[in-house]
């Protein structure tokens, strides 16, 4: 190389180097910011619960932030019988609901994925579609259906057979039934994925060596499905111990108190018993962490079974012969009970001038009066708008943050990137009641005036929904080859440009799935919103609870129908928007 050439060559290289350094700065900046945000968001609930449980004064008092601790709250909780009753009830309720929803969900998943039952696709779609029906509406509709004295089924039974109060939904059995029905779609989703990925060749190989169906089921199919089944059972159990709607609406009259209702009661009655409430929370949190640790163990165990997969994979459906009409009818009945009944009850009640059992007279008297009166009350509009704002806003921010997290975790070599993953995933262990309570307490201390605004709800939701969104996005991030990002780096494209122009578009399917999931759940969420509710930031689900407490079931039903329709419109519209921009969603 000649000397004269050298400077000319060196210049672009230098420019490239400076571009490189600028780009790395940006990435480091983004990484550190993300880490701090996560630390802040995730540390609040964990720190606040433990801290409060060790304090004898309430958050906001000067002594709360000093370093004097006491175990008196624990002594108080452990020596009271209501703590142990709540603990026992929680386990009992969770155990029973897990079993019931598992049996129903597993049956439907098996019918849809592994048999030649007619209408299998439709049954599967209806199961998944149920997630847009708010949980509180399901609970309310079953109460309207089977509560003593006013329940539709009881009224019909009285008129037809003269029996009084045949059903009593305000009972342990009733609570288990309603909550199980609500969880069946989740069970279905958890199991249908693993039923799909089971290699039918493994069972056929067993048949070929002379094992009959029973032996094949016992020695091959069951052991192989065990990790997935165990994981599903655990997740259902954890979901139940954290659940709130059913214990809140039904537990009182059924005289059945669980941890979540105890926590809610102790924080919502005056004077608030912060210490006791946080002690209950610590117990509940410890339980869910324990279960989740086992859950992840099982999942990893299950993955080790999936290392062998064949090329000639072809799903095998069991030919049920004539029985397939039976399984079809039974599944349709279940779908009707799970998805159809709540909606029908809501619609029915919303059209009544006053509460009565169905009959010709009733149908004649139906009016839209409830809707009219709703639309003429301006107070109704606000919660609707709040839910929409919180749903869409939370979903968008969560998805962006989660996309960055999974980018750093899966596509870069930063030290500490695993930390992001763990931090974003940890909140899965925090029950909603606790999440709501701790955010409230924290901002009672912090001189930032966001209590009573949508911002505080959004912040809590950010923590709550990150873990779920992260699963969706990580899966599609892992499918994008690292070289795509590296190519952009080598070409000298600034990092943020590359992230928005290359990564996000490639991630679209995963992002969209996550966005829908978060939007729907944030829109209909009750527990956190209730804990953080003041007059201005009440959401639609909180308003429903208000109507419930006032005893205005008919208005409630009309509002429920509108809420469901609004959510449906949002889902359909954003789905269309997504399609318009070239996204075909996976779910």
């Amino acid at each position, binding site marked *: 190389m000649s000397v004269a050439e050298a400077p000319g060559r060196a210049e672009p290289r230098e420019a490239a180097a400076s571009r490189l350094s600028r780009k790395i700065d940006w990435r480091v900046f983004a990484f550190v910011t993300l880490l701090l945000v996560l630390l802040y968001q995730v540390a609040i609930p964990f720190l606040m619960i433990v801290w409060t449980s060790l304090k004898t004064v309430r958050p906001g008092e000067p002594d709360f932030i000093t370093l004097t601790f006491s175990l008196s709250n624990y002594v108080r909780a452990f020596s009271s019988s209501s703590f142990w009753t709540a603990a026992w009830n929680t386990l009992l309720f969770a155990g029973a609901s897990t079993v019931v929803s598992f049996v129903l969900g597993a049956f439907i998943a098996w019918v849809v994925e592994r048999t030649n039952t007619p209408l299998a696709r439709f049954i599967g779609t209806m199961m998944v579609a149920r997630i847009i029906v708010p949980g509180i509406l399901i609970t309310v509709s079953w109460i309207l259906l089977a509560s003593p004295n006013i329940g539709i089924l009881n009224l019909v039974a009285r008129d037809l057979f003269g029996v009084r109060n045949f059903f009593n939904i305000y009972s342990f059995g009733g609570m288990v039934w309603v909550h199980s029905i609500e969880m069946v779609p989740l069970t279905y989703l958890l199991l249908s994925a693993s039923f799909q990925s089971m290699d039918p060749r493994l069972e056929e190989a067993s048949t070929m060596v002379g094992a009959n169906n029973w032996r094949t089921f016992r020695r091959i199919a069951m052991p192989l499905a065990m990790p997935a089944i165990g994981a599903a059972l655990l997740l259902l159990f954890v979901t139940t111990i954290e659940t709130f709607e059913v214990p809140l609406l039904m537990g009182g009259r059924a005289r059945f108190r669980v941890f979540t209702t105890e926590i809610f009661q102790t924080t919502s009655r005056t004077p608030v018993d912060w210490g006791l409430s946080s002690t209950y929370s610590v117990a509940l949190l410890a339980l869910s962490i324990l279960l989740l640790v086992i859950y992840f163990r099982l999942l990893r165990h299950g993955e080790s079974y999936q290392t062998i997969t*064949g090329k000639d994979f072809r799903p095998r459906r069991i030919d049920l012969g004539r029985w397939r009409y039976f399984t079809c009818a039974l599944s349709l009945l279940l779908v009707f009970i799970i998805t159809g009944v709540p909606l029908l009850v809501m619609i029915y009640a919303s059209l009544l001038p006053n509460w009565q059992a169905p009959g010709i007279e009733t149908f004649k008297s139906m009016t839209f009066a409830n809707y009219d009166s709703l639309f003429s009350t301006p107070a109704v509009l606000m919660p609707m708008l709040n839910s929409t704002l919180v749903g869409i806003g939370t979903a968008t921010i969560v998805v962006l943050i989660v996309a960055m997290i999974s980018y750093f975790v899966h596509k870069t070599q930063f030290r500490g990137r695993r930390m992001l993953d763990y931090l974003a995933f940890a909140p899965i262990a925090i029950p909603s009641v606790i999440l709501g309570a701790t955010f409230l307490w924290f901002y009672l201390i912090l001189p930032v005036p966001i209590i009573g605004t949508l911002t505080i709800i959004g912040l809590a939701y950010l923590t709550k929904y990150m873990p779920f969104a992260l699963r969706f996005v990580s899966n599609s991030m892992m499918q994008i080859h690292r070289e795509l990002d590296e190519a952009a780096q080598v070409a000298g494209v600034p990092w943020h440009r590359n992230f928005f122009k290359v990564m996000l578009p490639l991630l679209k399917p995963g992002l969209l799935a996550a966005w829908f999931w978060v939007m729907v759940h944030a829109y209909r969420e009750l527990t956190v919103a209730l804990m953080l509710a003041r007059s201005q930031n009440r959401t639609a689900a909180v308003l429903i609870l208000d109507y419930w407490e006032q005893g205005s079931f008919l208005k409630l039903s009309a509002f429920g129908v509108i809420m469901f329709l609004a959510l449906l419109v949002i889902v359909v519209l954003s789905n269309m928007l997504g399609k318009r921009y070239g996204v075909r969603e996976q779910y």
Partner: protein
Amino acid sequence: MISVAGLGKTFQSKSETVHAIRDVSFEVAAGEIVTLLGPSGCGKTTTLRCVAGLEKPTAGSIFINDRPVVDSKHDVFVPPHKRNLGMVFQSYAIWPHMNVLENVAYALEGRGMSKADMRAEAMRALDTVQMAHLSDRPAPRLSGGQQQRVAIARALVGRPQALLFDEPLSNLDAKLRMEMRKELRRLQLQIGLTSIYVTHDQSEALAISDWIILMKDGQIVERGRPVDIYCRPKKVFTAQFLGATNLFPGTLVALDGQRARVQGPHGDLIGVLSDPELRIGAPVQVSVRPEAIRMASSLGGTGQADANQIAGRLELAVFAGNAVEADVRVGEAKVLCLLDHDADLKADRDVVLTFAAEDTLVLANE
């Protein structure tokens, strides 16, 4: 030993009806290995799965050792676990929750054997495939070749009446495939087990089989010994599927015993008549394997009376290790030749291709 007659299988779905196989009949004699060969989707796996009992055929019958296992006319269907067959799947289907020994020993369960006997039998089977030293290894930690051996041991251990293989080598890399191919053949000759073997790889089929059955679109095209079916195919499809071949269209104009004269755009060609049904005036295809062709730079005496000669232009010649591959343009057609590796590689010159009449086959046009 195994006899399949008039087998048919139709898959019915909402949108379409797939005739996966139609009127498939063949016999497998005791101790022989018969290969079902054909392009992807031609119905090999379906045929094999019908024999195994994993698929219920819609027509036809299957007899194993003179016992009917399927007879769609008399509604006979013996379920797979009562047929006493061994099967090696394409994906091997090794049970991931068991170790190597357990995978093999499981095949002996339900026969009233003691645990110790089962273990001993399983170890013997593992020994046959040289896997005894890995008997404690968990199944997910086996390499592809090792999984394949375990799958074979598992299929062998119950002393089945016959073995069924569905593309057992297609998941292995090229080198291992060559080794395992020979080893499978050795094992089969040693044990003398009746086998049906499915593959879409023609060289594998040629190497491993006693008989080859060639399939296309769910039907049998042709069957024969490997040498015969390769050297003297009866159908154009067979000639094309089993290795490369050059085809020249034409009309049959004269017959002299086995010798046939064909007139076409490339002049008169003389070859062996493969199909005795052919009559004068029939449209035919003349097939010549690339390795049967010699190349010279001018027309001239070949020393043989009935040698064929075609003039063409050498477009490209490349060195391919054991031979020189040459593309020669003859009119519209391109002819592939495999020449000695000392051949002249200079391209863009006029050449004359010569091939003996006994290396030339006259096939019915399809």
